């Protein structure tokens, strides 16, 4: 009986750990995805702004569009944890 209890506890603990891992992966991988996406947009945006300052607002907007990806990751992570 005691062994069973321990086994249940271990299972619960590892379940928690898996959740934490999943949350971490969700945020981390989506963060990398966002970073990759913003990399080229950002450099092009800086170039465009150097040419013409008026486009700053527009390129800021374009640059942050991929941020949605990491927000999704964050949502998933938070839902997993809480």
């Amino acid at each position, binding site marked *: 009986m005691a062994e069973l209890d321990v086994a249940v506890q271990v299972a619960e603990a590892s379940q928690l750990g898996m959740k934490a891992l999943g949350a971490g992966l969700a945020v981390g991988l989506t963060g990398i995805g966002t970073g990759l996406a913003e990399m080229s947009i950002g450099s092009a945006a800086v170039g465009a702004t150097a040419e013409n300052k*008026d486009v*700053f*607002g*527009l390129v*800021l*907007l374009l640059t*942050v*569009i991929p*941020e*949605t990806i990491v*927000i*999704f990751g*964050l*949502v998933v992570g*938070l*839902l997993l*944890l*809480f």
Partner: protein
Amino acid sequence: MFTPEQMSRILIAAPRDVMVPVISELYRRRLFHIEDFVEDDHEEYEGYRIGHPVEGAGETSKELLRLRSVTSAFSIRPDDIEPSQRLSASRLKDQIETELPAIEREGEELLATRSGLENQAKELEQKIDQLTPFTGVPIDLSFLYGYRTISVLAGSVPKKVEIGAPHEEYYVESKTGNLLIVAVPNEYRPDVERTLLDAQFQAVAIPQESGLATERIAEYSARLDAVRREMDDVSSRIDSQREKHAGFLVACDELLSMDVERAEAPLRFATTDHAFIAEGWVPSESVAALSESITEVSGRRAFVTELPIDKGKDVVPVEYNNVSFARPSQLLLDVYSRPKYTEIDPTLLVSIVFPIFFGLILGDVGYGLILLVTSLALRKFMKGDDAKMLLAVLRNASISSIIFGFLYSEFLGFPIPGVYATLPARHLNIGGEAGGHGPAVPELMIMSVWIGIAYITLGRILGVVNHARQDHGSHRIFAILANLGWIMVMWGILLMIWSAFPMPLMPDLTGFPPLILGLSLPAILGAVMIVLGIVFIAKESALEIVELPTILSHVLSFARLVGVGLSSVAIAMVVNFIAIGLIIEPQLENLTIFGVIIIIVGVVVFLIGHLMNAILGMLGGGLQSLRLHYVEFFTKFYKGGGKKYSPFGMKRRFTED
């Protein structure tokens, strides 16, 4: 309030001999946005030409150019200077003739002296650099050059070299590089050079000097010091000149700029030999006063009339028309794009909602206070209108941050004792002593989603209004229906979700009995709304269908209000735990001298950590809430691209009539 200032199109026609007084009056009033005249553009302007500058414009321009060269050399910028008292224009005119040339001459002389000294210093430095490798050489440098039959090679080598040909050499090792000086008869020079090249010899020029290298360096250093002292002296004289004349110079700059602008105004008018016509824009409420005064100064010879506005063709300049509270947020709008004349101006909404979003993200009394103090303190140092507006935005945002700090009950990550969190708590379980029941993440999420739904719906409604105001004919109906379609699809999806799953803080529609295909009444209603909405969207433009997923992504995007906020809370709590829980508290139990030092370290960690987090919070809170406006809100209704209203005239800061 939600529309830009109303503008009227004005035409002024007058004989040429009253052009100067009319221009002066327009300039003084600072209301008339000149529409530049383009030749061969309109039929009705046949025979008109672009005007010539008023007499004397050339000289004034030249004078201004000279003045600008001096001010820029003194690095005086008008924006940096607080106007102390205003100088009278007529006295300034005399002074420009009497005093300005002397100041300019003096400035030019000082600058010439300084650049001459700079050149001297550079030369001396170069000579010292050249001599430095030879500091170890114990002979007179004049023995190293000037031979007809012997070549002298000097340079650094990684290690000692064996040279086959007959030669004399001097070799000394040092940390900075081994110096090798070789003297060979001219006929062996190519062989020796090849050998040295193989040994990675790097030649240095032999200085054309006499005497020991160390002595020469000492002498040059002394001269260099003298030159530098002289440079300091000149620089301080330049500084004192700047101090003395800055106010006068910027006033001259202003006066001359005004003269030049006035003198060149005819370049933007349509003229004939005897008359001129100026077209432009004036805020409607000022039309009567302006036309009255123009007629007055021209001796009732100018004809001023209001022209009809063709909304399709005319590009009306846009001036914001906001209450003073909303005015700083115009900066945020200008960064994106100024609204078009016919468009809704969302500045007021932004000025209210931006601080709220900022507070939702950075809801912390401590950080709010830090930012409030920073924004107030920076007002002393940051000059210029844009900086002032930015600081005002920051001030409003930090006040909102303090208010939300009380609502969240947070002070630098700690719960505020005695203040019950009205909003769902954000205190994480860090260090195992958060107290309470941990963060209420699901509630926070739902809250942010509700905000998203509300704000996006508002955006679409504004879209309906904009299309109703701007478009015509069948396109107008389709555009309005498409915007309604977007709202219907979003709420349809919500209805279907609510009828399928119960959710906290949202209506629970799961109780309705299924009617058809297992769907309950709200679910059917939702499905109908979705289908109808998609049809409306597709009728305007079928391509828009691919944008449908943005309904989900834009609403969920508002989750950043929670996500970014929680991360800032987490950092604050981690800083608290490390500084207090891990460093300070264990020392307090039995205090030693060493323990006091550790405690000081803990305090430093605490301060630096929270400072960093305050900066991060400001950037995060500011950029994220700005982004929510730009991407999630503005894309629903706002186009922008309006032309800035820049009236002919100048805001005088240093001079008066």
